[in-house]
């Protein structure tokens, strides 16, 4: 009961998906942390495109703004700060470990595929193209904002406190010993 998508849509979906996978693979195999970070940024861009294609435009923009734009930038800043740009020798574990990790990964992959046999009850399934119509009607933000400030208000508030804690923690952890005297 897959709805019929236009070829344009499908082609771009697969395109960005493949780019994401390729970038991810490149990411894990780079020796230099800077190169790896940049490949990860690329992965995130592709994912953002995928989000848009999946009628989650707001999330797509958020991905670029927050993830690629803020988090990865922080990563790069730290890499530069610690002067790790060139990558150490022997940064990866040995071949045996790689094979084992590959096996574990393939095993988990196989299990996930086995689990996709499960089907959610149809009563939960929305009618076709529901999200797209909603977006067309109210805009991309309203479908998220409504639940966020109604059902998940508590989680929202708690998350803000979490962010406060993170800020405080980061500042405390990042302080140098000498800073206590030099106010």
């Amino acid at each position, binding site marked *: 009961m897959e709805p019929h998508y236009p070829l344009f849509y499908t082609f771009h979906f697969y395109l960005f998906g493949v780019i994401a996978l390729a970038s991810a693979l490149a990411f894990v195999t780079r020796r230099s942390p800077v190169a790896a970070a940049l490949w990860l940024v690329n992965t995130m861009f592709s994912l953002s495109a995928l989000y848009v294609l999946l009628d989650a435009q707001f999330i797509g923009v958020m991905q670029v703004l927050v993830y690629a734009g803020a988090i990865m930038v922080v990563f790069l800043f730290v890499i530069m700060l610690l002067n790790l740009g060139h990558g150490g020798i022997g940064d990866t*574990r040995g071949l045996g470990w790689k094979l084992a*990790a590959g096996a*574990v990964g393939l*095993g*988990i992959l196989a*299990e*996930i595929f*086995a*689990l996709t046999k499960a089907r959610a009850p149809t009563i939960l399934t929305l009618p076709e193209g529901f999200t797209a119509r909603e977006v067309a009607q109210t805009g991309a933000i309203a479908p998220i904002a409504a639940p966020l400030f109604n059902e998940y208000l508590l989680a929202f508030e708690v998350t803000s406190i979490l962010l406060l804690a993170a800020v405080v923690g980061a500042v405390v952890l990042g302080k140098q010993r000498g800073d206590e005297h030099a106010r």
Partner: protein
Amino acid sequence: MLPLLQAAAAAAHPLDGTAARWLWAVPLLPLAGFVINGALSILPAYHAGAADPGLAHGDGHGAAHLETETPDTAGAHADDHHPVKRHRYAGLVSIIGPGVLMVSFLLSAMIFFAMRGAGGGAMTEPFIQRYFSWMPVGDLKIDAAFHLDQLSMMMTLVVTGVGMLIHIFSVGYMQDDPGYPRYFSYLNLFVFFMLLLVLGGNYPFLFIGWEGVGLCSYLLIGFWFSDKANADAGKKAFVVNRIGDFGFLIAMFLMFANMGTLDFTGVRAATQSLPVGGALVTAICLFLFLGCVGKSAQIPLYVWLPDAMAGPTPVSALIHAATMVTAGVYLVARSSFLFSHAPVAQLVVVLVGAVTAIFSASIGLKQWDIKKVLAYSTVSQLGYMFIGVGSGAYVAGVFHLVTHAFFKALLFLGSGSVIYAMHAAYHHTDNHDDAQDMRNMGGLRQYLPITFILMWIATLAIAGIPPLSGFFSKDEILGSLFARAEHSTIASAHLFGLAGSVWLYFSWALGLAAAFMTATYMTRMMLYTFHGPNRTGEAERSHLREAPWVMTGPLVVLAILAAFGGWLNLPELIPIGRVGLLDHWLEPVVGESTRFVVAGAPEASPGLEYGLIALAVLIAVAGITTAIIKLKPATLVPKREAPQEEGFERVLLDKYYVDEIYDDAIVKPVVGISRGVLWRGVDAGLIDGLGVNGSAYLTRFVGWVGSQLQSGQLGTYAWVLALGVLAVLGAFGLR
């Protein structure tokens, strides 16, 4: 008065309301004696003075003894060098110990007269007293019940009567022993258990008494346990008995599984519906007999009885002559209804009894220790009793039990007097020779005249010279056996292919041969001990004297009983008094079973019977004469100078090496397996090594594995996470 479980049942018993309602006191009095004497023995009362007389003397055989001992273990004797202190409570114990037995005996006598008044042999129903429900478990309902009928009454009288005499004798014999209260407490306990045995109303209750007397036998044989040989003898008795007990238990299991009941009346009723000679009845009887073989020292489990002579002589008299060893005979008589239903089992009993009789009689021919002669004589006479009850002549077997109790107790107590005199003599000269070896005796008739006369009475009785008691009982056994060999259910049965009558005639021949040997070895004993020149030694001779009256008195009583005990069951052919008293008395108990065996037999001709009697007397006289002619007491030398025996005599002296065979064939392998396999292999290896140490090791190992995971390395933790996810997803997917 102990409350009864069912008061006044449907049918009132003629003994209700008579002295029989005090039946419970008969065994409980000795039990009270045990408790009091036992308490007195534990109280620290004996203080060894500066000259400690308690240097351990064992049974007078001069073996090496331990120096260290508690005051209670040694057997001190009256001595000029060491003034012996009697136990502080010896006076009190001398009153309580024999006293409870006297009251018990008087009570038994009163109950006996009450029974006579209630009809005696005409009292068809047993007097059953149920005191409490002992083991109610599902279908199994065993009560603590006393079953008083003519048979148990007779046994009670024998046990309390002879027991009382032996208690009185012990007051003299053990007077200087530091373990005086302990001795009497054990002796009282023994009488208690023996009374439970004969009065018990069902097989398990009988079994309590059965095991209890085995326990007391162990305690009393090993009375002077500081000498290892004595302790070993006690152990041997107990272990060999246990083998028999196993048979008894199997028989009880079979009975319950197939009959659903274990009390005598119930089993008797259930047996009527079983086929005669069937596998079940035969099996039950054979297993019961296995118990008897152990307890009553028949082949192959007789080996403990000669060793049991390590105990004090009154113990040998009471336990190994008059009462405990007769428990097997009592059991067969009590189970007469079972045995009469199983002719093959009866054949086995008769055969084993006959072979044992002649086998041990032959060993007795060459023993030098006076008590060992009597021990083998006991085994032999027990064989006769089993011939009696095995052939279905239950009255004859029980009759011989009673007469044997009289003359064998007399013989043992007499030998006790002899040993007492020899010990006293040796102590005066500090001699360490064997006081029990006949080669050290001789010519004692001039020093112990009363004992001499009394022991000759007993010897003539056991040889079977009329008109003493042994003649009547032994002749009745052999006569009944001969009659049954001609025509009876047993004669019609088959064993190992041969007809029963063949086996019975063969057993009769063995019985005659054993009678000849009995007369011979008993006369030999008398000749070597009392006749001829004295070999004790110059210095000791002057100290030999008769035992005190407290010891000789019971001997006189027993001699009277041994002489006139035959009047209990005179045969029809010798009507010098009332005929067949015991036959009539035991009629309700065993009469039916006896008649079942000889049903349809033709009346024996008086000529044949007179002939058999004459033959028996002839054999007895021949045995005595042979001994007198062939044995020359004058040619004997004391033990320390005696030459070693040669040839077949050596074999007889060494008891056919049966003990050695048992040791090599059974004891050593069992000990080897126990030590090698069960101890080292299973206990130390499996249970300790694998179980205890192994589980500890496993725990530590698992802990070590766990600790390896806490490496502090993030990478390791990530790995563990990933593997965990794998596992959980897998479990999830598998569902």
